[in-house]
């Protein structure tokens, strides 16, 4: 065998091993989701079987039926959607102007105000929840969805991301718009936002995913069952009277994960870019 042939064989062997190992790693990350999906359609008794079946022998939708019928899941989904939607709307109207001002205007005190934004970026809800809870109690709004909405009204991360984007827009364009007698408001909505569409969409996406998955904040802010979001409802599936019914639990979790899966399949490129940026900064 010549040296060239040897090298070729070595290359093929390492290449195959490499791919096989990649498939294995992919399996490690996909399997739990697969398991969740198939368990959600297995009948109760089959979920208890040992060793477990890798493909359901009998299909059943009873898990989903239980979640929708007995749990009144729609109410929780509605709460989550109202919270998420309101947060996204408020964020647009609060974060975009702030980011524009920080990116494009020099003004006295901008340094100290920017520091405030950074502080908000660093301080987690885990430190603020006590004071905010009692503040809302004083305001008398604990029996509404507002406690879940208002604290996320301004997102330091969104301001950060948008500001970075606005900074890249050439100054000439803004000057030109001012010569065209456009108000600052108009410059923001007709120029800055359309030109930063990708970033706006990304921040909204993050907002959505963050609030759809929100756990800690609703946990500490809600007492009333009627105000709880989907996560807290799904969590309670583990504590139902009938004991651990994995069919129902997994069905609930599939419902929880599904919207995020769909969004990820649609926007994975954008999400990944923004996430990488967030990590690099």
């Amino acid at each position, binding site marked *: 065998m010549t040296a060239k042939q040897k090298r070729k064989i070595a290359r093929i062997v390492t290449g195959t091993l490499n791919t096989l190992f990649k498939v294995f790693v992919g399996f490690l990350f996909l399997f739990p989701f697969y398991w969740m999906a198939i368990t959600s359609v297995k009948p109760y008794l089959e979920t208890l079987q040992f*060793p477990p079946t890798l493909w359901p022998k009998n299909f059943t939708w009873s898990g989903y039926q239980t979640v929708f019928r007995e749990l009144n899941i729609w109410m929780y989904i509605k709460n989550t959607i109202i919270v998420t939607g309101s947060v996204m709307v408020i964020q647009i109207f609060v974060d975009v102007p702030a980011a524009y001002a920080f990116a494009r205007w020099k003004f006295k005190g901008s340094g100290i105000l920017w520091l405030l934004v950074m502080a908000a970026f660093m301080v987690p809800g885990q430190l603020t929840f006590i004071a905010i809870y009692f503040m809302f109690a004083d305001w008398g709004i604990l029996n509404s969805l507002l406690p879940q909405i208002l604290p996320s009204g301004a997102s330091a991360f969104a301001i950060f991301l948008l500001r970075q984007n606005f900074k890249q827009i050439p100054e000439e364009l803004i000057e030109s718009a001012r010569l065209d007698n456009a108000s600052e408001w108009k410059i923001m909505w007709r120029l800055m936002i359309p030109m930063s569409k990708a970033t706006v969409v990304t921040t909204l996406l993050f907002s959505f995913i963050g609030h759809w998955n929100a756990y800690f904040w609703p946990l*500490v802010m809600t007492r009333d069952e009627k105000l709880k979001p989907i996560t807290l409802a799904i969590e309670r599936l583990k504590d139902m009277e009938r004991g651990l019914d994995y069919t129902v639990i997994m069905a609930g*979790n599939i419902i929880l*994960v599904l919207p995020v899966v769909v969004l990820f399949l649609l926007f994975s490129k954008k999400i990944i870019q923004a996430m990488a940026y967030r990590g690099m900064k």
Partner: protein
Amino acid sequence: MTLKSKKEEAGGKKKKGLRSFLSNKLPPYIMVAPAIIFFLLFTVYPIVDMIILSFYEWNVIQPRKWVGLWNYKYLFDIQIDFKIALQNTIVYTVSEVFFLILFALIFSVWLQKDSKVNAVLQRIMFFPHLCAMLAVSVMFSWLMDENGLFNMVLSFFHLPGLRWLNSSSTAMMSVVIVSVWKSIGYQTLILLSALKTIPADIYEAAALDNTGPVRKFFCITIPLLSPQLFFMLITITMSSFKVFDSVRMLTKGGPGKSTVVLVYYIWSYAQSNLKYGVAAAAGVVLLVILLILTFFYFRILDKKVHYQ
């Protein structure tokens, strides 16, 4: 010039000043005002209130009572549960930092080449990061069940099963496994995009110098990634000190107090013990830790800017 006309001129200047103030100076303040109000209400006020509260005893029902540093004494002197929480948090943080950076390095170098398989695998690995912790915890509580899949795999290799989340000696490790699994894709992604910023010609020069892959990794990749790695070290540390969701969902702090972490401690003192002063004092400790980390965070951020 008469006095009157001078006065008029001064008046005219003032009017002009106001007009230019309204059009040149005011807009940015109006634009940032809403955001600033939100931050003042939901960041600054709560933090100030927490610091004040940490010097009081309060259980909601009775009015606040000044106790000075007693709450801090309670944390560090009287009870040991806070020290346990701190210790657990540190163990959790160190393991997170170590395993995340290690695996992120391995995976990012391994999946660096632009190919279809790598792109797909990166996405698969990344997805758990977006997925609700709740779903992840449900999956892993099943996998880590004593009759679950992990033990089945262990027995297949004739190894003794573990009690995973149900034993105080393995619970913390299990929580770490879950969160590493969840966010390794994200960390890998960050390193991958950092790797992309390393100029290709450096690697080409190394290839011409007949540099082996191991040498290439330790002598080129790691040094060139070092600002990014340090940055990761800080961000992972910060997020690890804030960990709550996974602990609450997987172990509820147990068994015993083996997985009680700082935030869990704060939460339980506020939620169940109604000792708000103690919770606030613990919050202040966490705040100080985060502030120190933030300081380093910005130091590196500045350096990176100078670097470019």
